[in-house]
Protein backbone atom coordinates (compact mmCIF):
# COMPACT_ATOMS: atom_id res chain seq x y z
CA UNK A 1 0.00 0.00 0.00
CA UNK A 2 1.02 3.58 -0.56
CA UNK A 3 0.01 6.62 1.43
CA UNK A 4 -1.60 9.59 -0.27
CA UNK A 5 -3.75 12.46 0.91
CA UNK A 6 -7.16 13.27 -0.51
CA UNK A 7 -8.25 16.80 0.28
CA UNK A 8 -5.91 16.73 3.24
CA UNK A 9 -6.92 13.36 4.71
CA UNK A 10 -4.42 10.51 4.67
CA UNK A 11 -5.53 7.46 2.72
CA UNK A 12 -3.89 4.15 1.88
CA UNK A 13 -4.33 2.84 -1.64
CA UNK A 14 -2.84 0.00 -3.63
CA UNK A 15 0.27 0.68 -5.65
CA UNK A 16 -0.53 1.54 -9.25
CA UNK A 17 -3.96 2.90 -8.34
CA UNK A 18 -4.94 5.39 -10.99
CA UNK A 19 -6.53 8.74 -10.35
CA UNK A 20 -9.63 7.52 -12.19
CA UNK A 21 -9.94 4.58 -9.81
CA UNK A 22 -9.54 6.85 -6.81
CA UNK A 23 -12.22 9.24 -8.07
CA UNK A 24 -14.64 6.34 -8.48
CA UNK A 25 -14.10 5.55 -4.81
CA UNK A 26 -15.11 9.12 -3.97
CA UNK A 27 -18.16 9.52 -6.20
CA UNK A 28 -20.22 7.49 -8.65
CA UNK A 29 -20.28 10.56 -10.91
CA UNK A 30 -16.64 11.30 -11.74
CA UNK A 31 -17.63 14.00 -14.22
CA UNK A 32 -18.90 16.23 -11.40
CA UNK A 33 -15.39 16.60 -9.96
CA UNK A 34 -12.28 18.33 -11.18
CA UNK A 35 -8.98 16.96 -9.97
CA UNK A 36 -5.47 18.10 -9.23
CA UNK A 37 -2.46 16.16 -8.01
CA UNK A 38 0.32 18.00 -6.21
CA UNK A 39 -1.16 21.29 -7.42
CA UNK A 40 -1.29 20.31 -11.09
CA UNK A 41 -4.59 19.99 -12.93
CA UNK A 42 -5.29 16.49 -14.19
CA UNK A 43 -8.08 16.44 -16.75
CA UNK A 44 -10.75 13.75 -16.93
CA UNK A 45 -9.06 12.30 -19.99
CA UNK A 46 -5.75 11.96 -18.15
CA UNK A 47 -7.06 10.25 -15.02
CA UNK A 48 -6.90 6.73 -16.39
CA UNK A 49 -3.24 7.09 -17.26
CA UNK A 50 -2.26 8.89 -14.08
CA UNK A 51 -0.89 6.43 -11.53
CA UNK A 52 -0.74 7.71 -7.98
CA UNK A 53 2.55 7.66 -6.14
CA UNK A 54 3.42 7.54 -2.49
CA UNK A 55 3.03 10.98 -0.93
CA UNK A 56 0.79 12.42 -3.66
CA UNK A 57 -1.64 15.13 -2.58
CA UNK A 58 -4.93 14.80 -4.43
CA UNK A 59 -7.50 17.57 -4.45
CA UNK A 60 -11.04 17.41 -5.80
CA UNK A 61 -13.25 20.37 -6.57
CA UNK A 62 -16.96 20.78 -7.24
CA UNK A 63 -19.09 23.62 -8.67
CA UNK A 64 -20.56 26.11 -6.23
CA UNK A 65 -22.15 29.53 -6.31
CA UNK A 66 -19.77 32.44 -6.62
CA UNK A 67 -19.42 36.18 -6.89
Amino acid sequence: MIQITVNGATRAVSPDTTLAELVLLLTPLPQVLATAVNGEFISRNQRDAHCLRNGDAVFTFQPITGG
Partner: protein
Amino acid sequence: MAFHIAGIELDSRFFLGTAQYPSPEVLQLAIKASGAQVVTVGLKRQLAQGDGTGSAANDFYSIIRDTGVRLLPNTAGCRAAREAVTLAHMARELFDTPWIKLEVVGDEYTLQPDPFELVKAATELVRAGFEVFPYCTDDLVTCQRLLDAGCRILMPWGAPIGSGQGLLNPHALRTLRARLPGVPLIIDAGIGSPRDAVQAMELGFDAVLLNSAVAQAHAPVQMAHAFKLGIEAGRLAFEAGIMAQQAMAVPTTPVTGRPFVL
Protein backbone atom coordinates in the same frame (compact mmCIF):
# COMPACT_ATOMS: atom_id res chain seq x y z
CA MET B 1 -28.53 48.41 -25.70
CA ALA B 2 -26.93 45.23 -27.07
CA PHE B 3 -23.18 45.02 -26.82
CA HIS B 4 -20.43 42.55 -27.58
CA ILE B 5 -18.06 40.99 -25.17
CA ALA B 6 -15.55 38.30 -26.06
CA GLY B 7 -17.29 37.89 -29.40
CA ILE B 8 -20.69 37.32 -27.79
CA GLU B 9 -23.64 39.68 -28.20
CA LEU B 10 -25.42 40.43 -24.95
CA ASP B 11 -28.56 42.46 -24.36
CA SER B 12 -27.99 42.85 -20.63
CA ARG B 13 -25.13 44.83 -19.13
CA PHE B 14 -25.79 43.31 -15.72
CA PHE B 15 -23.51 40.46 -14.63
CA LEU B 16 -24.84 38.86 -11.46
CA GLY B 17 -23.07 36.89 -8.75
CA THR B 18 -24.81 33.79 -7.42
CA ALA B 19 -23.47 33.50 -3.86
CA GLN B 20 -25.10 34.27 -0.51
CA TYR B 21 -28.74 33.93 -1.54
CA PRO B 22 -31.18 32.69 1.09
CA SER B 23 -32.44 29.83 -1.09
CA PRO B 24 -32.05 28.37 -4.58
CA GLU B 25 -35.55 29.58 -5.40
CA VAL B 26 -34.71 33.19 -4.51
CA LEU B 27 -31.55 32.95 -6.58
CA GLN B 28 -33.53 31.67 -9.55
CA LEU B 29 -36.05 34.51 -9.27
CA ALA B 30 -33.29 37.08 -8.79
CA ILE B 31 -31.53 35.95 -11.96
CA LYS B 32 -34.80 36.28 -13.84
CA ALA B 33 -35.58 39.71 -12.37
CA SER B 34 -32.08 40.97 -13.13
CA GLY B 35 -32.30 40.11 -16.79
CA ALA B 36 -28.66 39.03 -16.50
CA GLN B 37 -27.35 36.78 -19.23
CA VAL B 38 -24.07 36.09 -17.46
CA VAL B 39 -23.69 34.90 -13.87
CA THR B 40 -20.61 34.07 -11.89
CA VAL B 41 -19.97 30.71 -10.28
CA GLY B 42 -17.12 29.20 -8.28
CA LEU B 43 -15.32 26.02 -7.37
CA LYS B 44 -14.92 24.58 -3.93
CA ARG B 45 -12.40 22.09 -2.70
CA GLN B 46 -14.23 19.16 -1.20
CA LEU B 47 -13.67 18.51 2.46
CA ALA B 48 -12.05 15.26 3.42
CA GLN B 49 -14.92 14.13 5.62
CA GLY B 50 -17.68 16.08 3.89
CA ASP B 51 -19.15 19.17 5.50
CA GLY B 52 -22.81 18.46 5.01
CA THR B 53 -23.20 21.28 2.48
CA GLY B 54 -22.56 19.29 -0.67
CA SER B 55 -26.23 18.70 -1.35
CA ALA B 56 -27.14 22.35 -0.78
CA ALA B 57 -24.32 23.45 -3.09
CA ASN B 58 -25.61 21.08 -5.74
CA ASP B 59 -29.13 22.49 -5.37
CA PHE B 60 -27.88 26.00 -6.02
CA TYR B 61 -25.74 24.93 -8.94
CA SER B 62 -28.57 22.93 -10.50
CA ILE B 63 -30.77 26.01 -10.38
CA ILE B 64 -28.10 28.13 -12.01
CA ARG B 65 -27.45 25.60 -14.74
CA ASP B 66 -31.14 25.25 -15.49
CA THR B 67 -31.58 28.98 -16.04
CA GLY B 68 -29.56 28.64 -19.22
CA VAL B 69 -27.54 31.80 -18.59
CA ARG B 70 -23.90 31.96 -19.58
CA LEU B 71 -21.50 31.01 -16.77
CA LEU B 72 -18.44 32.98 -15.75
CA PRO B 73 -16.45 30.84 -13.29
CA ASN B 74 -14.09 32.58 -10.90
CA THR B 75 -10.82 31.70 -9.21
CA ALA B 76 -11.87 33.01 -5.81
CA GLY B 77 -9.55 32.14 -2.97
CA CYS B 78 -6.36 32.08 -5.03
CA ARG B 79 -3.31 33.91 -3.71
CA ALA B 80 -0.77 32.95 -6.37
CA ALA B 81 -0.73 32.72 -10.14
CA ARG B 82 -0.04 28.99 -10.08
CA GLU B 83 -3.13 28.32 -7.96
CA ALA B 84 -5.29 30.44 -10.22
CA VAL B 85 -4.04 28.74 -13.37
CA THR B 86 -4.79 25.29 -11.94
CA LEU B 87 -8.24 26.36 -10.76
CA ALA B 88 -9.00 27.95 -14.12
CA HIS B 89 -8.26 24.68 -15.89
CA MET B 90 -10.57 22.89 -13.47
CA ALA B 91 -13.28 25.46 -14.12
CA ARG B 92 -12.97 25.07 -17.87
CA GLU B 93 -13.52 21.35 -17.53
CA LEU B 94 -16.34 21.49 -14.99
CA PHE B 95 -18.31 24.36 -16.53
CA ASP B 96 -17.36 23.70 -20.15
CA THR B 97 -16.40 27.29 -20.88
CA PRO B 98 -13.13 29.06 -21.65
CA TRP B 99 -14.35 32.14 -19.78
CA ILE B 100 -12.64 32.75 -16.46
CA LYS B 101 -12.99 35.56 -13.97
CA LEU B 102 -9.40 35.71 -12.82
CA GLU B 103 -9.01 36.58 -9.15
CA VAL B 104 -5.62 36.56 -7.46
CA VAL B 105 -5.79 38.34 -4.15
CA GLY B 106 -2.75 40.00 -2.64
CA ASP B 107 -4.04 41.37 0.64
CA GLU B 108 -6.20 39.58 3.16
CA TYR B 109 -7.72 42.70 4.67
CA THR B 110 -8.86 44.47 1.51
CA LEU B 111 -8.92 41.44 -0.80
CA GLN B 112 -7.08 43.71 -3.22
CA PRO B 113 -5.89 41.95 -6.38
CA ASP B 114 -2.17 41.21 -6.63
CA PRO B 115 -1.23 42.91 -9.92
CA PHE B 116 1.98 40.95 -10.40
CA GLU B 117 0.47 37.51 -9.90
CA LEU B 118 -2.59 38.59 -11.89
CA VAL B 119 -0.55 39.52 -14.97
CA LYS B 120 1.50 36.33 -14.63
CA ALA B 121 -1.62 34.16 -14.48
CA ALA B 122 -3.38 36.07 -17.24
CA THR B 123 -0.41 35.63 -19.56
CA GLU B 124 -0.41 31.88 -19.07
CA LEU B 125 -4.16 31.48 -19.34
CA VAL B 126 -4.48 33.54 -22.52
CA ARG B 127 -1.80 31.34 -24.08
CA ALA B 128 -3.83 28.30 -23.03
CA GLY B 129 -6.89 29.60 -24.86
CA PHE B 130 -8.88 31.13 -22.03
CA GLU B 131 -10.99 34.28 -22.32
CA VAL B 132 -9.68 36.02 -19.24
CA PHE B 133 -11.83 38.50 -17.32
CA PRO B 134 -9.29 39.83 -14.81
CA TYR B 135 -10.59 41.28 -11.57
CA CYS B 136 -8.16 44.15 -11.08
CA THR B 137 -7.77 47.48 -9.37
CA ASP B 138 -8.35 50.79 -11.14
CA ASP B 139 -4.61 51.27 -11.72
CA LEU B 140 -4.12 52.28 -15.34
CA VAL B 141 -0.69 50.72 -15.83
CA THR B 142 -1.79 47.39 -14.38
CA CYS B 143 -4.71 47.44 -16.77
CA GLN B 144 -2.40 48.16 -19.67
CA ARG B 145 -0.17 45.25 -18.67
CA LEU B 146 -3.20 42.96 -18.59
CA LEU B 147 -4.10 44.06 -22.09
CA ASP B 148 -0.49 43.44 -23.14
CA ALA B 149 -0.88 39.92 -21.73
CA GLY B 150 -3.76 39.33 -24.12
CA CYS B 151 -6.81 40.14 -21.99
CA ARG B 152 -9.64 41.61 -24.08
CA ILE B 153 -11.80 42.65 -21.13
CA LEU B 154 -10.97 44.32 -17.84
CA MET B 155 -12.90 44.25 -14.58
CA PRO B 156 -11.64 47.04 -12.30
CA TRP B 157 -13.03 47.24 -8.80
CA GLY B 158 -15.27 50.02 -7.60
CA ALA B 159 -14.42 49.26 -3.97
CA PRO B 160 -13.28 46.19 -2.00
CA ILE B 161 -15.29 43.01 -2.54
CA GLY B 162 -18.48 42.88 -0.52
CA SER B 163 -17.97 46.32 0.99
CA GLY B 164 -20.87 48.05 -0.77
CA GLN B 165 -18.97 51.33 -0.69
CA GLY B 166 -19.68 52.25 -4.28
CA LEU B 167 -17.16 53.87 -6.61
CA LEU B 168 -14.40 55.05 -4.27
CA ASN B 169 -12.20 56.58 -6.94
CA PRO B 170 -14.25 58.03 -9.80
CA HIS B 171 -11.21 59.94 -11.05
CA ALA B 172 -9.24 56.73 -11.62
CA LEU B 173 -12.23 55.12 -13.28
CA ARG B 174 -12.74 58.11 -15.57
CA THR B 175 -9.06 57.91 -16.46
CA LEU B 176 -9.39 54.23 -17.34
CA ARG B 177 -12.39 54.91 -19.51
CA ALA B 178 -10.65 57.77 -21.28
CA ARG B 179 -7.36 55.98 -21.83
CA LEU B 180 -8.85 52.63 -22.88
CA PRO B 181 -11.74 53.73 -25.08
CA GLY B 182 -12.11 50.51 -27.07
CA VAL B 183 -11.75 48.03 -24.24
CA PRO B 184 -14.83 46.48 -22.62
CA LEU B 185 -14.68 47.61 -18.98
CA ILE B 186 -16.86 45.99 -16.34
CA ILE B 187 -17.04 47.45 -12.86
CA ASP B 188 -16.65 44.49 -10.52
CA ALA B 189 -16.93 44.60 -6.75
CA GLY B 190 -17.90 47.22 -4.24
CA ILE B 191 -21.26 48.19 -5.69
CA GLY B 192 -23.74 48.76 -2.86
CA SER B 193 -26.75 50.50 -4.29
CA PRO B 194 -28.35 50.97 -7.71
CA ARG B 195 -27.07 54.55 -7.63
CA ASP B 196 -23.51 53.16 -7.77
CA ALA B 197 -24.43 51.15 -10.84
CA VAL B 198 -26.01 54.20 -12.44
CA GLN B 199 -22.82 56.15 -11.78
CA ALA B 200 -20.66 53.41 -13.30
CA MET B 201 -22.78 53.29 -16.42
CA GLU B 202 -22.91 57.09 -16.71
CA LEU B 203 -19.10 57.06 -16.64
CA GLY B 204 -19.21 54.96 -19.77
CA PHE B 205 -18.42 51.55 -18.35
CA ASP B 206 -19.77 48.72 -20.44
CA ALA B 207 -21.30 46.62 -17.69
CA VAL B 208 -21.50 46.04 -13.96
CA LEU B 209 -20.86 42.84 -12.01
CA LEU B 210 -22.23 42.60 -8.49
CA ASN B 211 -23.41 40.03 -5.99
CA SER B 212 -23.72 41.07 -2.36
CA ALA B 213 -25.87 44.14 -3.02
CA VAL B 214 -28.60 41.90 -4.39
CA ALA B 215 -28.08 38.78 -2.27
CA GLN B 216 -27.97 40.70 1.02
CA ALA B 217 -31.03 42.86 0.33
CA HIS B 218 -34.13 42.12 2.39
CA ALA B 219 -35.84 41.41 -0.92
CA PRO B 220 -33.17 40.16 -3.33
CA VAL B 221 -35.55 39.70 -6.26
CA GLN B 222 -36.81 43.27 -5.99
CA MET B 223 -33.26 44.56 -5.66
CA ALA B 224 -32.19 42.62 -8.73
CA HIS B 225 -34.92 44.41 -10.65
CA ALA B 226 -33.86 47.76 -9.19
CA PHE B 227 -30.30 47.21 -10.40
CA LYS B 228 -31.56 46.18 -13.83
CA LEU B 229 -33.41 49.47 -14.15
CA GLY B 230 -30.47 51.46 -12.79
CA ILE B 231 -27.99 49.90 -15.19
CA GLU B 232 -30.30 50.51 -18.13
CA ALA B 233 -30.94 54.10 -17.03
CA GLY B 234 -27.25 54.81 -16.58
CA ARG B 235 -26.38 53.43 -19.98
CA LEU B 236 -29.18 55.35 -21.69
CA ALA B 237 -28.01 58.54 -19.99
CA PHE B 238 -24.41 57.95 -21.08
CA GLU B 239 -25.47 57.41 -24.67
CA ALA B 240 -27.81 60.40 -24.58
CA GLY B 241 -25.06 62.73 -23.33
CA ILE B 242 -25.20 64.20 -19.86
CA MET B 243 -25.27 68.00 -19.74
CA ALA B 244 -22.24 69.88 -18.54
CA GLN B 245 -22.50 71.16 -14.97
CA GLN B 246 -22.61 74.93 -14.49
CA ALA B 247 -21.21 76.78 -11.51
CA MET B 248 -24.20 79.13 -11.35
CA ALA B 249 -27.91 79.03 -12.16
CA VAL B 250 -28.87 79.31 -15.81
CA PRO B 251 -32.51 80.37 -16.51
CA THR B 252 -34.51 77.81 -18.42
CA THR B 253 -37.80 79.59 -19.19
CA PRO B 254 -37.35 81.93 -22.17
CA VAL B 255 -39.02 85.00 -20.61
CA THR B 256 -38.40 88.58 -21.64
CA GLY B 257 -36.67 89.91 -18.55
CA ARG B 258 -38.87 90.64 -15.48
CA PRO B 259 -42.59 90.29 -16.24
CA PHE B 260 -43.68 93.82 -15.25
CA VAL B 261 -40.52 95.80 -15.62
CA LEU B 262 -39.85 97.42 -18.99
